[in-house]
């Protein structure tokens, strides 16, 4: 059950027609708290419950910075389902997303209602893309972090957990956790298989 108290929406989009249109879609309990273009003026987080922002390389970090240490919910407007930033945004904690070309009052309000109810909401096309990705989470099996690659390289030299921990100044528990993450991401049963696979794929 959604709390029917007013929910204040801030809309950030650099196109005034689209921004005005999204504002015109709002109906109770959603109220327009304010609007901005490329975060100018800066959204008033103290008067906003949900920030709707344009997903791009500047928008995502700006929105994350504003939402840090607040209860602000984030809804991203993506250019298309193919937008790689969508995956980053989801991992970063965005509550919902909307595709620019598919936006209409119904989809926009549905996304806001889902966010307000604490449920994520993604367009079907984005869900399909997420579900069709390789096993191992939102990142692909080859998308290992520098830390994971560093551990894999030392594993390939035959180093033990303790030696890797000493080399990289990690605790043994941290190394074990990283190895576990690598195995899950690469869908491997053991370290040897992960090293062999990473070598074959040219990751290390």
């Amino acid at each position, binding site marked *: 059950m959604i709390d029917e108290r007013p929910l204040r929406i801030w809309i950030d989009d*650099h*196109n*005034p*027609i*689209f*921004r*005005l*249109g*999204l*504002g*015109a*879609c709002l109906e109770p309990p959603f109220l327009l708290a304010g609007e901005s*273009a490329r975060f100018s003026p800066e959204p008033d987080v103290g008067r906003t419950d949900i920030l709707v922002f344009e997903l791009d390389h500047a928008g995502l970090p700006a929105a994350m910075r504003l939402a840090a240490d607040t209860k602000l919910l984030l809804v991203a407007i993506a250019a298309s389902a193919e937008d790689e930033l969508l995956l980053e945004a989801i991992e970063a904690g965005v509550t919902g997303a909307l595709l*620019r*070309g598919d*936006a*209409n*009052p119904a989809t*926009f309000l549905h996304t806001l209602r889902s966010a307000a109810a604490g449920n994520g909401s993604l367009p079907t096309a984005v869900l399909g893309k997420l579900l069709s990705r390789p096993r191992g989470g939102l990142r692909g099996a080859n998308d290992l972090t520098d830390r994971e690659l560093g551990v894999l390289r030392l594993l390939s030299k035959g180093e033990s957990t303790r030696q890797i921990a000493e080399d990289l100044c990690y605790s043994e528990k941290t190394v074990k956790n990283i190895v576990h993450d690598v195995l899950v991401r690469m869908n491997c049963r053991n370290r040897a298989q992960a090293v062999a696979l990473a070598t074959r794929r040219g990751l290390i």
Partner: protein
Amino acid sequence: MQRVLIGGFGTVARMGLRELFDGQGVEVVAEAEPDRGIVSCVSEVRPDVVVLDLDDDGAVDTAEKIASEFPAIKVIACSCEEPVMRVFPPFHHGESYASMLSAPLLALALSS
């Protein structure tokens, strides 16, 4: 009161345009889909201004056609992706100028 025809645009953008036109002394007399023939709708309705979706393929061709067939009609093609618009003033034989797109600038382009 200016009579405006909106050609193209998604639902949200049309709502944005209507929001913008409210209080500007502008009456939206028709909305036309690109594939249903904006030019024939212009012929039927004879608006003062046609506002086109600059992101539609062929929007500039449509604007030039309207300027050619109906020289007294002003055409404003607005993008919904980038904040830009292209204005085809009446009696300028399809010549146009590009401008930044903002609510005040669009209102100015409509009224001037």
